[in-house]
């Protein structure tokens, strides 16, 4: 699968690539987010989950990255890179963070036990790759989802300029809205 990804990246060498990172804790919905919006079938590096705790949540997990693409015009392509969620793969955050235009950190709104992992990811990128960031409170369609404003308070983002917005990663309009919110943040910063 990594070979396919390398091939895809190399064959598009003549186009300018603009990179957006989709990060977040384990099972936050990053792979689904990319699948919903990418114009190509996303390239994923999924492996069977091995840890009991993780197996109870989902069967496969991203171990290196997910990759999706949106063609902007003849000269530009927007690349969406999904990072692995578990902190044992955090070396990939460093590799993928370089040169990113912005970051969407997805959080599973129904699972407060993963919020601290989201906080660690936000801390990492704010300290090492300070680029515009949006937090997507995913799974807002589920009944026990925490509302975005509470997630904002739980993540200590209420005093910062990082928006927390509702997301349903299976819904294209919702994913588009998250991407547009990030792009507006980028525009505010650099436009």
């Amino acid at each position, binding site marked *: 699968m990594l070979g396919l990804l390398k091939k895809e990246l190399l064959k598009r060498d003549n186009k300018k690539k603009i990179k957006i990172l989709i990060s977040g804790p384990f099972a936050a919905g990053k792979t689904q987010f990319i699948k919903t919006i990418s114009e190509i079938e996303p390239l994923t590096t999924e492996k069977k989950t091995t840890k009991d705790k993780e197996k109870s949540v989902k069967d496969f997990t991203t171990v290196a990255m997910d990759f999706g693409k949106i063609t902007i015009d003849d000269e530009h392509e927007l690349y969406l890179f999904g990072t692995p969620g578990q902190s044992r793969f955090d070396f990939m955050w460093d590799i993928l963070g370089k040169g990113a235009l912005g970051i969407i950190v997805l959080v599973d709104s129904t699972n407060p036990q993963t919020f*601290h992992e989201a906080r660690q990811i936000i*801390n*990492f990128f704010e*300290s090492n790759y300070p*680029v515009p960031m949006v937090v997507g409170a995913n799974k807002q369609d589920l009944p026990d989802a925490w509302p975005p404003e*509470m997630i904002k*308070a739980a993540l200590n983002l209420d005093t910062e300029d990082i928006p927390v917005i509702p997301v349903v990663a299976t819904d294209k309009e919702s994913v588009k809205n998250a991407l*547009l919110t990030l792009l507006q943040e980028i*525009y505010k910063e*650099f436009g």
Partner: protein
Amino acid sequence: MGFSGNLKDFPFPDILQVIAREKKNGILLVEWKDLIVAYYIKNGQIIFARPIDKITRVYTEQNFPELLRKLRVKEEVIPKILEKYLLNRLDQREGIFSLIFGFIKYRSDEKAPIPIEQIILEASRKLTPMEVRRKISDDMLTFMITPEGKEVVKNLKLTPVEEKVLELIDGHRTVEDIRRELFPTPPIEINRALYGLWSAGIIKRVRRGKRHKPEGLTVDILKRIIEKVKEL
């Protein structure tokens, strides 16, 4: 509207942080290993605690002044009650919590015997190194004192380490710098202080350096990307 979770995964300072930020009325219910306690919240402050036999009681007894009369609780004993059912339990991790906002009717003059920021600091002092690492996860984190923090801190009792840490918060020093300057204070004590001060809203994170504009990014390209995403 509310939320629920497990104290093992979502420790007390983090719950209190949400309560303090939301500044609403409601009830925090904690099903401890040995008993169920209802904590009464008014404008983001915990003003009373009460062990209950049935959860439904908090829904049927919504009038707070009436409840105090019925329980024959005098205002002067409330700090002791909070100490027994809240402060003395801050090191326990076995419990399920749920927070429900609204529905409790208060008078306008009930006051919090202990500021919630003080309880957050107390709870943070009892965190394990692993729990602290969840929030103070990067040595390069940098903080500044919030405008409200300067006022809030006047009413709190800080430990000597918390005081020293607060003195060093200037929007430039990193966690690593603070640890170095306070050597030989144990790093865990410094991290707990930072955790508590941050959770209590006395300090906030600041971004280190300016965000760098990616090479080759123009307004025109940005506009094209935005238009393309809108069309999808």
